C-alpha cells in the first residue's frame, strides 16, 4: 500500500496536512511525490489500520490511479471484498504485464488475489495453479528456472495440484519471504480440497507443513488460527513430523509431555534416516526445546550431502540449525564458519528468508564479539526486510540483536525500548491461544552485562548473568550511579519471574572510558565469584584490568542436571517458542551464575584447568554429545539433477512418516537386453529372508531414463 501518488485524490489531500505536520508523510525531494517518511512508518500505518480502512484506502487509490491501469487494478483488487470475476480478470491481465516487466513477485501477488476474487471454482483453480507457477519462478534457483517454467506450465494446464501450490508457497516463503501470499495460496488450496484430509495424503500434509513454516516466520495469531482450522480437518493421527511441529514448534512452552516424548523419539530416529527434509524438520522442532545437539550427527550428514550437490536448500537449513546449537554451546568459531557457508549459498540461490536465521545468529555473535557495527547493520537490514513483509519473527530477531547490542554498550535506555519493540509493537500475538499459537516474544529480560568484546585474540570470560544475581555478584550494583541504578530497576522489573534472565557471556575488554574499565575490572575481579576467568587458547588469562576478554559462551560447571529442566520449565511458563530460547539462555545463565563452585574447584591448578577445560565446558554446555559420524552407508543424496529446479527437488524429497528400520531395502536393477523378470529367483530368496525387495523396470533407452527409473525419481516421471 502506498500513498505516494495519492495527491490527485481530493479526499486524501484534505487529510494530508495533519499527517505532514506529524512527520508521517512528506514531499520527497527525490521523486517530488508525497511519500511516507520511512518504510517503517508506512508499515506501522498499515498495521494500525483496520481492514475497512484498508479497503477504503485501496478504493480511493484505485480512483486516484485512473491513468495508471496497472496500479488501479491492483488497488481495485485489494479493495474488493466479495468475489468479482471482472476484477479477477483484470488482475490476471495485470499479472501478465507485471511478469513481462520482470516484476514476478507482484505478478504472483496479483494472481493470488485474482484467484481469491474468482467466483467459479475451475477458474480459481486455474489461477492458483498459475500463481503457483509464478511463485516457483520467482524464487527458483536460476539454474533450474527454465526447467521450472516448463514443469509449472505443465502443472497449470491441469487442475492445480496441492503439490504445485505447496511448492509455490514454499518458494514464495523461502525466497521472497512473501508469507502473506504463501499463506493465502495454501489456505485457498486447502479449502478447495473437499472432505477431511488423509494423513497419507502427502501433498496435503506437505501443504500443512509449509503452512506451519509460514506461520512460524509470520508470527501472526490469525495465521495460526487458520492453520489450526486446517489441521483440524486431518483425520487423526497427524504424520509425526507434522505432529511434532505443531506441538513443539508452534508452542514449545505448552508442549505436552507426550509431544516431548514424541520429539525425543523422532530425534533419536534421525540416526536411521537420510531424508534431509525429515532431518531438518525434526531438528528444527527440536531447536526450541534445546535438542539440536542430539541431531547434530544427522544434520552434519545433511550438510555433507548438500556439499556433494544434494539437497542444498536443506543443507542451508542444517547449517543454521547447527549454528544455532553452536551459539548456545559457545562454539562461535564453528558458528561463523557455518553461517558463512549457509549465507553464501543463500545468496547464490536466492533464498532470502532462509538466510534470516543465519544472519540473526551471526549478528548475535558479532555483537558478542564486539563487532557492533556489523550487528547494527544486520539488525537494520533484517528489520527493513521483514517490516514490509510483516514477518514478525524476523522483526523480533532484529530487536533481539539490537537489545543485545544496546546492553553490551550499557545503553540500557536503548536496550529496553528495543526489547519492548520486539515484544509489543511487532507482536500482535503476544498471548498464545490454547492449542498453540506461536507469538513472537523476544527475551524481555535480556540483560547481558557485557562490556565490549574483543577481537580474535580476545580471551574469554563467560558469565551469563541473571540480571539480579549478576549485579549482586559483580558488585556493580553497589557502585551507584545511573547505570547501576538502571540495572537495579530492570532487575526489579524482571524479578517476579526467575525466568527473565539475561543472555550469558560477559566479555570484557579495555573500553575507551576509564570508568568502564574500572567497572569491567570489578565485574571480573571483585568477588571473583560471578565471573571466572577462563582461558580459551593456551594461556590462562589473569583477572586484571586491561586484558582482553570476550565471551565465548563456554561455561564450565558440570551442572548438566539443570539443563534437563528445560522442558518442564518451558512447559510451565505457557509461552511462545521464542521464550523457550530464553529458557535455554536461562539455563545457561544458571550454569554460569553457578560458576563460583567451579572456580573453587578448578582454581588454582592451572594444568588441571587445561585438561578439564574442554571436557567440563563441553559437558556443561551440553555439547558433550556423541559426535561420531555414522558410517556413510546411511547417507543418500538427493541429487541435484542438471537443469532441474527446486520445485523438482522439493517434490522429490518430500518426507513421509517412514517406518524406520535398519534392515535395508534391496533394489534390483536389470541390465541390457532383458527386463526385471529375471530377478524372480533372487527376489524369492531375499523375500524369504525377510528383506523388502523392489525390482526396477528400466526401459534402458538412456542412462538419464535409467536414473529416472531407478528408485530416485520413478514416481515423478510416470
Amino acid at each position, binding site marked *: 500500500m502506498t500513498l505516494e501518488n495519492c495527491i490527485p485524490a481530493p479526499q486524501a489531500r484534505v487529510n494530508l496536512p495533519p499527517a505532514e505536520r506529524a512527520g508521517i508523510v512528506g514531499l520527497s525531494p527525490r521523486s517530488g511525490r508525497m511519500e511516507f517518511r520511512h518504510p517503517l512508518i508506512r508499515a506501522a500505518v498499515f498495521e494500525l489500520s483496520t481492514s475497512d480502512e484498508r479497503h477504503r484506502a485501496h478504493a480511493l487509490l484505485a480512483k486516484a490511479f485512473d491513468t495508471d491501469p496497472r496500479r488501479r487494478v491492483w488497488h481495485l483488487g485489494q479493495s474488493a471484498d466479495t468475489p468479482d470475476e471482472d476484477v479477477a480478470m483484470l488482475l490476471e491481465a495485470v499479472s501478465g504485464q507485471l511478469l513481462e516487466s520482470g516484476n514476478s513477485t507482484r505478478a504472483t501477488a496479483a494472481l493470488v488475489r485474482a484467484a481469491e476474487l474468482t467466483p467459479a471454482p475451475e477458474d480459481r483453480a486455474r489461477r492458483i495453479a498459475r500463481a503457483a507457477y509464478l511463485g516457483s519462478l520467482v524464487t527458483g534457483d536460476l539454474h533450474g528456472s527454465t526447467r521450472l517454467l516448463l514443469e509449472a506450465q505443465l502443472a497449470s494446464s491441469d487442475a492445480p495440484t496441492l503439490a504445485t501450490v505447496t511448492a509455490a508457497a514454499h518458494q514464495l516463503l523461502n525466497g521472497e519471504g512473501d508469507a502473506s501470499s504463501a499463506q493465502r495460496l495454501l489456505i485457498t488450496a486447502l479449502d478447495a480440497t473437499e472432505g477431511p484430509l488423509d494423513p497419507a495424503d502427502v501433498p496435503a500434509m506437505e501443504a500443512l507443513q509449509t503452512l506451519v513454516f509460514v506461520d512460524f516466520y509470520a508470527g501472526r495469531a490469525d495465521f495460526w488460527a487458520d492453520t489450526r482450522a486446517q489441521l483440524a480437518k486431518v483425520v487423526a493421527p497427524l504424520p509425526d513430523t507434522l505432529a511434532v511441529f505443531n506441538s513443539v514448534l508452534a508452542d514449545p512452552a505448552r508442549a505436552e509431555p507426550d509431544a516431548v516424548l514424541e520429539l525425543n523419539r523422532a530425534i533419536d530416529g534421525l540416526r536411521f534416516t537420510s531424508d534431509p527434509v525429515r532431518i531438518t524438520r525434526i531438528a528444527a522442532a527440536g531447536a526450541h526445546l534445546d535438542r539440536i545437539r542430539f541431531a547434530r550427527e544427522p544434520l552434519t550428514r545433511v550438510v555433507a550431502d548438500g556439499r*556433494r*550437490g544434494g539437497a542444498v536448500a536443506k543443507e542451508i537449513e542444517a547449517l543454521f540449525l547447527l549454528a544455532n546449537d553452536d551459539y548456545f554451546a559457545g562454539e562461535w568459531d564453528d558458528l561463523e564458519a557455518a553461517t558463512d557457508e549457509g549465507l553464501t549459498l543463500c545468496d547464490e540461490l536466492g533464498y532470502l528468508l532462509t538466510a534470516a536465521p543465519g544472519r540473526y545468529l551471526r549478528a548475535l555473535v558479532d555483537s558478542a564479539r564486539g563487532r557492533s557495527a556489523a550487528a547494527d547493520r544486520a539488525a537494520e537490514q533484517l528489520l527493513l526486510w521483514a517490516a514490509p513483509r510483516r514477518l514478525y519473527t524476523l522483526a523480533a530477531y532484529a530487536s533481539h540483536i539490537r537489545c543485545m547490542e544496546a546492553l553490551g554498550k550499557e545503553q540500557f535506555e536503548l536496550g529496553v525500548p528495543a526489547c519492548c519493540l520486539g515484544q509489543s509493537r511487532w507482536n500482535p500475538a503476544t498471548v498464545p491461544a490454547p492449542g498453540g499459537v506461536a507469538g513472537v516474544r523476544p527475551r524481555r529480560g535480556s540483560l547481558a552485562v557485557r562490556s565490549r568484546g574483543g577481537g580474535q585474540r580476545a580471551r574469554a570470560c563467560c558469565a551469563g548473568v541473571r540480571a539480579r544475581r549478576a549485579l549482586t555478584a559483580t558488585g556493580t550494583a553497589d557502585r551507584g550511579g545511573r547505570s547501576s541504578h538502571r540495572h537495579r530497576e530492570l532487575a526489579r522489573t524482571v524479578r517476579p519471574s526467575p525466568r527473565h534472565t539475561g543472555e550469558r557471556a560477559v566479555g570484557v575488554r579495555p573500553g575507551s572510558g576509564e570508568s568502564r574499565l574500572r567497572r569491567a575490572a570489578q565485574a571480573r575481579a571483585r568477588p571473583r565469584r560471578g565471573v571466572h576467568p577462563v582461558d580459551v587458547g593456551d594461556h590462562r588469562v589473569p583477572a586484571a584490568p586491561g586484558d582482553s576478554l570476550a565471551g565465548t559462551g563456554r561455561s564450565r560447571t558440570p551442572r548438566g542436571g539443570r539443563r534437563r529442566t528445560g522442558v518442564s520449565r518451558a512447559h510451565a511458563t505457557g509461552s511462545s517458542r521464542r521464550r523457550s530460547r530464553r529458557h535455554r539462555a536461562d539455563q545457561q545463565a544458571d550454569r554460569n551464575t553457578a560458576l563460583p563452585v567451579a572456580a573453587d574447584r578448578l582454581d588454582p591448578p592451572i594444568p588441571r584447568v587445561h585438561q578439564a577445560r574442554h571436557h567440563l565446558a563441553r559437558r556443561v554446555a551440553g555439547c558433550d554429545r556423541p559426535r561420531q559420524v555414522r558410517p556413510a552407508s546411511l547417507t543418500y543424496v538427493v541429487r541435484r539433477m542438471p537443469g532441474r529446479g527446486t520445485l523438482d527437488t522439493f517434490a522429490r524429497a518430500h518426507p513421509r512418516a517412514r517406518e524406520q528400520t535398519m534392515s535395508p*531395502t534391496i533394489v534390483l*536393477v536389470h541390465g541390457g537386453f*532383458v527386463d526385471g523378470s529375471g530377478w524372480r*529367483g533372487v527376489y524369492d530368496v531375499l523375500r524369504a529372508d525377510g528383506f523388502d525387495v523392489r525390482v*526396477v523396470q528400466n526401459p534402458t533407452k538412456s*542412462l538419464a531414463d*535409467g*536414473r529416472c527409473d531407478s528408485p530416485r525419481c520413478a514416481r515423478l516421471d510416470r
Partner: protein
Amino acid sequence: MLDSIDEPVVLVGHYYGGAVITEAGTHDEVYITAFAPDQGESVQSLISTFPADGPQPPILPPRNGYLFLDRAKFHEAFAADLTSDDAAFLADAQVPWGLDALGGTISRAAWRVKPSWYLHVSDDRMIPPAAQVSMAERTGATVVNTAGSHAIYVSQPKTVADLIRTAAAAIS
C-alpha cells in the same frame, strides 16, 4: 518408488544395471557381473576397452538407435547355464537396448564414496572376466567368484542372494 522405500537401500545391478546404480545415488552397491563405470565413463567406453581377442558378445548393428542380441547366439553368449527353453524365451523376449543408454556418461560414481560388492562370474561371455576383475578392483569392491554364465542372476539366484545378504548385513 522412492517414496515407498525405507532407507537404507542396497542397490543391485546386473550388466548395464551396474551403470544405473552407479549413477543412481549414493547407496551401497552390489554389482552382479556388471559395468562399474567411473565418472565421465560410459558403458560404451568401457566396452571399448575390453580385449578384442576374446569372445565377443553377439550384438547386432543398431537399428533406430537400439541394439539387439543375435537370437541364435543368445543362449551361448548370454545364458549358457540356462536350459535352452529358458534361454530361448529370454532371447525372444529381449528388450532393445538404447544406444543413448550405452553412451550415457556417469556424472558421479557412487562406488567412490560407498562400499560395494562384486560378483565375478568366470564364464561370462558378455563382460569378459578380466574386465570384471579390473572394474571390481577399481571400485575397491568385496569380490566373490563364481562359475556361471552372464545370466547368473537367473541361473544361481542363491549365490546372488548370498552376496546381497552379505552387503545388507554390512549395512545393518
